[in-house]
């Protein structure tokens, strides 16, 4: 088992390298000159050159890639420039701009400078860690509620499979899934928040408890409601796949009631694909629902990324993407290991 985990971790490196290359290709090669994005309306060539120098984009691509790799290795807490400049206190032959910046950096008295957002000049690691809390406050309850409700309802529907009720519920699910999430949010926010005043229209505070009990319920309910239809359809198909197996017939043949068969035999076996599905959805809770966060002004990661996209704030998007790719890979490994706990038949190859 340990050997399996070590090997899987080892296999992550090429994938991670691919992610880094993809991100680098997108933002450094395709994304255009960041100095022009950053400078905005400045047309002064010298100023643009200075910005390019500060960002390191005046270097050839392989050097830039090195900078990016260095930033990733330090978790975006240290830019390569600040690292090398702190080591060599007299940065000569770097032009007047670098000289002017040097004393300022020494006064800072730290060896490293974190990667900063282009738009707000905040440190990127701080932005990301401060935004993850609100996202999880909404998304963890969503995932838990959706899974539990989905399994309970799906078992109920699978119990009455083939009847009119079953077909009606499936039709309703298909129709509910076809309405855009946007429409649900717009309508629910208008009626529950604005018109009937049952929930706050939007907002967020620093207190977790207030957020969780006052601001989060409407977004959570919406996400659960919208996610329930696809989950129900999927989980129902998992149960129906199991029902046709021989062991179910055996269980019925030895005189077990339909309830015992469903709850004891079918449920346990259907839990395996259900867990796979939850495992696939798990990395998504870190990204959060950027639509919900935008509509309800929740200062979460999804909204932050969206804002960064609109502002062309590349460092934030790059950091978020790399971090989330790492989280995804680790979660996938954890889910695969967790199979062993659920299903004793699973062996690690």
């Amino acid at each position, binding site marked *: 088992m340990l050997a399996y985990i070590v090997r899987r971790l080892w296999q992550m490196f090429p994938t991670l390298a691919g992610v880094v290359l*993809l991100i680098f290709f997108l933002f450094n090669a395709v994304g255009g000159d960041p100095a022009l994005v950053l400078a905005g309306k400045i047309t002064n060539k010298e100023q643009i050159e200075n910005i390019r120098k500060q960002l390191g984009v005046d270097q050839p691509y392989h050097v830039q890639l090195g900078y990016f790799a260095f930033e990733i290795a330090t978790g975006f807490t240290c830019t390569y420039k600040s690292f090398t400049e702190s080591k060599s206190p007299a940065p000569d032959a770097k032009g007047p701009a670098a000289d002017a910046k040097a004393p300022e950096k020494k006064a800072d008295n730290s060896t490293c400078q974190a990667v900063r957002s282009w738009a707000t000049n905040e440190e990127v690691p701080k932005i990301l860690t401060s935004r993850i809390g609100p996202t999880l406050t909404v998304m963890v309850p969503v995932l838990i509620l959706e899974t539990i409700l989905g399994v309970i309802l799906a078992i109920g529907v699978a119990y009455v499979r083939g009847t009119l009720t079953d077909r009606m519920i499936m039709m309703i699910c298909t129709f509910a899934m076809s309405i855009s999430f946007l429409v649900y949010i717009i309508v629910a926010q208008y009626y529950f928040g604005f018109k009937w005043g049952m929930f706050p229209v939007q907002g967020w505070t620093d207190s977790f408890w207030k957020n969780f009990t006052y601001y989060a319920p409407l977004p959570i309910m919406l996400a659960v409601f919208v996610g329930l239809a696809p989950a129900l359809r999927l989980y129902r198909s998992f149960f129906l796949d199991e029902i046709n197996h021989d062991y179910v017939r055996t269980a019925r043949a030895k005189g077990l009631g339909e309830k015992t068969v469903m709850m004891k035999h079918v449920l346990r076996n259907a839990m395996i694909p259900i867990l796979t599905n939850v495992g696939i959805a798990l990395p998504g809770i870190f990204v959060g629902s950027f639509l919900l966060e935008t509509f309800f002004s929740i200062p979460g990661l999804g909204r932050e990324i969206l804002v960064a*996209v609109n502002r062309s704030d590349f460092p934030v998007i790059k950091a978020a993407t790399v971090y989330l790719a790492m989280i995804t890979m680790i979660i996938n490994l954890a889910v695969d290991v967790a199979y062993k706990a659920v299903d004793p038949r699973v062996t690690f190859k």
Partner: protein
Amino acid sequence: MSAVLDNKSAPVAAPLHQASPGLWTLAWRRLKKDKVGMVSMVVVIFFLLMMFGSWAGIIAKNWSKEVGVSYANPAFMAGAENLEGVRKDDKAEASKVPYVDLSDIDPLAPRYKEWEERTAKIKVTETPRADTLLFGGDKWGRDVLQKAIKGAETSIFVGLVAALLATFIGTVLGAMSGYMGGKVGDALEWFYNVFTSIPYILLILAFAAVFKRGLDTIIFILAFTGWTGIYRLVRAEYIKHASREYVKAAQAIGASHSRRMFVHILPNVSHVCLVQLSQHVVQFIKAEVILSFLGLGVPVDSVSWGTMLAEAQSELVIGKWWQLAAAGISMAILVTAFSMLTDSLRDALDPKIK
């Protein structure tokens, strides 16, 4: 050589009459029996015809004309109050502020008369604006129904083309990976792993961040981020088929690799591609709507269901619900029909079900 050609035209093909029907014939027979599937197909074809009609300029040609008053009421709510739609000339009351003669200190006063004469010469043709439109008007008095048709054109076009492109990418890469295996397969698997280890939404946003807004861009983004699921399935099918006897037979008669991949195997996995295509159209239409809503999708001068919903959000607060309803309902109908058609197609094309 001529003998082979002769064989084809000669009536030797007599046993073909008893030939069992192929997969597609069987699938079509099964689909015809499926009432839900047929109704869905009619609805989908209706929407596609609407798209072509709108694209060719036959219907909804004048969607951008401001034909009604601002927020014109729908025809079935003609009597409803419409404060936003009040005509301008209703406001032409006398000002209540007492008139002060400033002409002796106003430096422009001597020219007022000249200007009035000039303005009188310019003819302003005020197009008559309708108080009600069939399904209401938007802020600029455009017909919401025509807008919804035009929006459908954009959204369906994006969904359709992006799905075709994604299916093409996924099929070609999946075929290569599954059929060739080895180094090529490993490289493509690596490529696949890279794309799937980034959460899908984040991948789309990362692409959207670096490319300029536009119809072609959004199609490219959706296709280039959405091919992974198709790749997975097609690859699995190709692995299964690559060692089958008919492929070995093809090799024996000297068919090249690409011929075996795309002429011999592809028809046998095409049903998987078709179902995936249909599923991805739905997925991409939904994605396009959300991206356009966020301002990352279609350009500002065109209209899609997403941009309509973006306008509808603020309209709902002042009680103008029809744009939301028009975009929401038309999209819901199409997507429901398309999803049910996909389900029917899957059932019809599944050779295991008789």
